[in-house]
């Protein structure tokens, strides 16, 4: 194998946590790795959340071009319905596919938006919101799942996602659940490493990539036990073990990173990156409640229960807006708490109600101005620190599916979509939430040593991966190879080459033309059954 590149994703990693942990000796390998290479802050995209950010990292394109804006997507520009975002929605070629079509082999483990798995030359285990019951379908090639199942310690229930379990990361959990929850992620990262090690030994690939996503989850729930600014000088008997276990997670992660480096050729390039950074969220902005109080939104049932818990964002309420809202009287709404996006109901786009196209600009400007007036009861300062229109944030062929407005809150937090009596409520304890500033670290042939670079874009990672494998960079990639990361003589010998725009990958879905045959009786029976489901009137 002439070239080998290892890409390690660390979901949500931020130097504000990693630096103190390296200084305290919790992550000695990472400290040594950075000394042997380069580091930089890696600026995420808008919004800095997992699905669009990892998709930007995998494609080198912005969300308006790759088409992924959130965990869920609108069914169509005219629809109020949202659906699970899948690999079918990724509108640009990924590095897995590009490397694969150049005749190299690829292993891609636990990256989101890779379900169903692309049929590349190599191995894929889909990540993201793939439940354990469907993990077999998330594996490529088809026999991979059975091979993994035979590995000692394989446990699909822990390896894949459990939605109810994962919700705890953002919505919180009971004090007695913290330890089990952190230990779950310690075991989970070990399993992903075991799979990586098996595949690196059995099927060495030019590009091997693994996403560790426990950092994001631990930081969401345990931020106050990690951020030095929030550490209690005199931790309670309950707090100390949680802090210790959180550190144990990072200590183990550091060891796994060291073990991956040991499995790698000495002349390989190793790149580590996160999809976004992290910080504290101290308040909750109930955006749909604010829209309601200002006459932009109406609940279908005015007596619907109000949220009294200031920590709840509504992760379990996803997609329920479709029947919780009164569409005759709603002009703007936030369907998910994950993207901080507001959609404007526009007349003529699937409904006669809503804002007329002629009034759209005025209405949107009024909404922006009103949102800027919302203030925190705690600080008296504006709650919304920045508002992007979709033309500003999502320019590209898929912009029509994006939220009309995307909010950044003063504390970097996520909005709540639930009904509440108060628009803004302080949280009893700060929780972790996303920030745009993620991490980039790299070492390998030609990479400078001990250098801290100015910030890079998350879209620069894909070109760097391709360049490390000797491949030209597709002309339509928005990111570029961070040339400052390399020694000038090496870069002269291995210059960055551009090529034609990336192409859609080879069709991977079955192309069978399916023609359905049914009789009149079958049609009548069908209609009756679908009516019973509420699907047709």
């Amino acid at each position, binding site marked *: 194998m002439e070239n080998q590149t290892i890409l390690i994703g660390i979901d949500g990693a931020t130097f504000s946590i990693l630096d103190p942990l390296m200084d305290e000796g919790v992550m000695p390998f990472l400290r040594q790795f950075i000394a042997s290479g380069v580091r930089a802050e890696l600026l995420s995209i808008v919004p800095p959340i997992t699905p669009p950010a990892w998709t930007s990292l995998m494609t080198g394109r912005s969300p308006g071009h*790759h*088409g992924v804006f959130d965990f869920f*997507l609108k*069914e169509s520009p005219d*629809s*109020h*319905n949202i*659906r*699970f975002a*899948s*690999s*079918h*929605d*990724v*509108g*640009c*070629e*990924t590095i897995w*596919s590009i490397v694969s079509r150049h005749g190299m082999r690829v292993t891609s483990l636990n990256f989101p938006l*890779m379900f*169903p798995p692309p*049929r590349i030359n190599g191995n894929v285990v889909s990540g993201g*919101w793939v*439940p354990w*019951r*469907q*993990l*077999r379908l998330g594996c490529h090639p088809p026999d991979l799942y059975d091979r993994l199942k035979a590995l000692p310690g394989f446990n699909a229930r822990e390896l894949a996602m459990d*939605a*109810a379990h994962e919700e705890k990361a953002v919505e919180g959990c009971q004090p007695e659940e913290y330890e089990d929850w952190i230990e779950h992620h310690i075991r989970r990262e070990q399993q992903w490493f075991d799979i990586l090690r098996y595949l690196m030994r059995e099927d060495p690939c030019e590009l091997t990539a693994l996403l560790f996503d426990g950092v994001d989850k631990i930081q969401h729930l345990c931020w106050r036990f990690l951020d030095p600014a929030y550490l209690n000088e005199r931790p309670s008997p309950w707090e100390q073990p949680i802090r210790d276990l959180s550190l144990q997670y990072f200590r183990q992660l550091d060891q796994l990173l060291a073990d991956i480096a040991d499995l790698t050729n000495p002349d390989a390039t190793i790149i580590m990156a996160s999809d976004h950074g992290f910080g504290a969220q101290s308040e909750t902005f109930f955006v749909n409640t604010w829209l309601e109080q200002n006459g932009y939104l109406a609940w279908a049932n005015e007596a619907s229960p109000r949220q009294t818990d200031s920590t709840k964002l509504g992760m379990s309420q996803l*997609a*329920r807006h*479709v*029947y919780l809202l009164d569409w005759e009287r709603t002009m703007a709404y936030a369907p998910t708490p994950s993207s901080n996006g507001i959609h404007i109901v526009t007349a003529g786009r699937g409904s006669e109600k809503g804002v007329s196209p002629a009034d759209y600009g005025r209405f949107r400007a009024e909404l922006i101005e009103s949102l800027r007036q919302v203030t925190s009861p705690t600080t008296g300062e504006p709650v919304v620190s920045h508002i992007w229109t979709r033309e500003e944030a999502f320019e590209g*062929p898929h912009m029509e*599916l994006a939220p009309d407005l995307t909010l950044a809150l003063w504390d970097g937090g996520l909005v709540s979509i639930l009904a509440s009596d108060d628009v803004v409520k302080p949280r009893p304890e700060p929780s972790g939430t996303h920030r745009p500033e993620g991490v980039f670290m790299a070492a390998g042939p030609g990479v400078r040593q001990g250098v801290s670079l100015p910030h890079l874009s998350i879209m620069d990672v894909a070109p760097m991966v391709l360049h490390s494998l000797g491949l030209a960079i597709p002309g339509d990639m928005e990111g570029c190879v961070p040339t400052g990361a390399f020694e000038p003589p090496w870069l002269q010998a291995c210059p960055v080459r551009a090529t034609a725009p*990336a*192409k*859609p*990958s080879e*069709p*991977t*879905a*079955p*192309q*069978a*033309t*399916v*023609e*359905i*045959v*049914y009789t009149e009786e*079958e049609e009548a029976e*069908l209609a009756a*059954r*679908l009516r*019973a*489901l*509420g*699907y047709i009137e």
Partner: protein
Amino acid sequence: MKKTREEVMADVLDLFRQLADDWEYSGEIMPKTLLFTDIGLRSLDVVVLAVSIQEHYGRVLPFADLFAAMGQHGVQDISMGEWVDFVYEHLNETLVLSAVEGSGAAR
């Protein structure tokens, strides 16, 4: 290739039976089997299975409309037979899924 309702049922049952071993579900999966009550699936399982069905047929199917309608009408469960009805109803009318990754073909 023409697909009858029986063939769609066979396809979907085959997919579920393939996965049932992993679920350690020992009951027989039949048209009247309820996805939530009998098999123990959760909402996200059903959503992901919908994506797999689309992958299998290379078709975009309006599952989001089905799930929204179920929620709106308080329908708590769906049987294999009803699931197949929905797939069968829409297979002939929906968009071809021309590529899985690289085209944004699901829209």
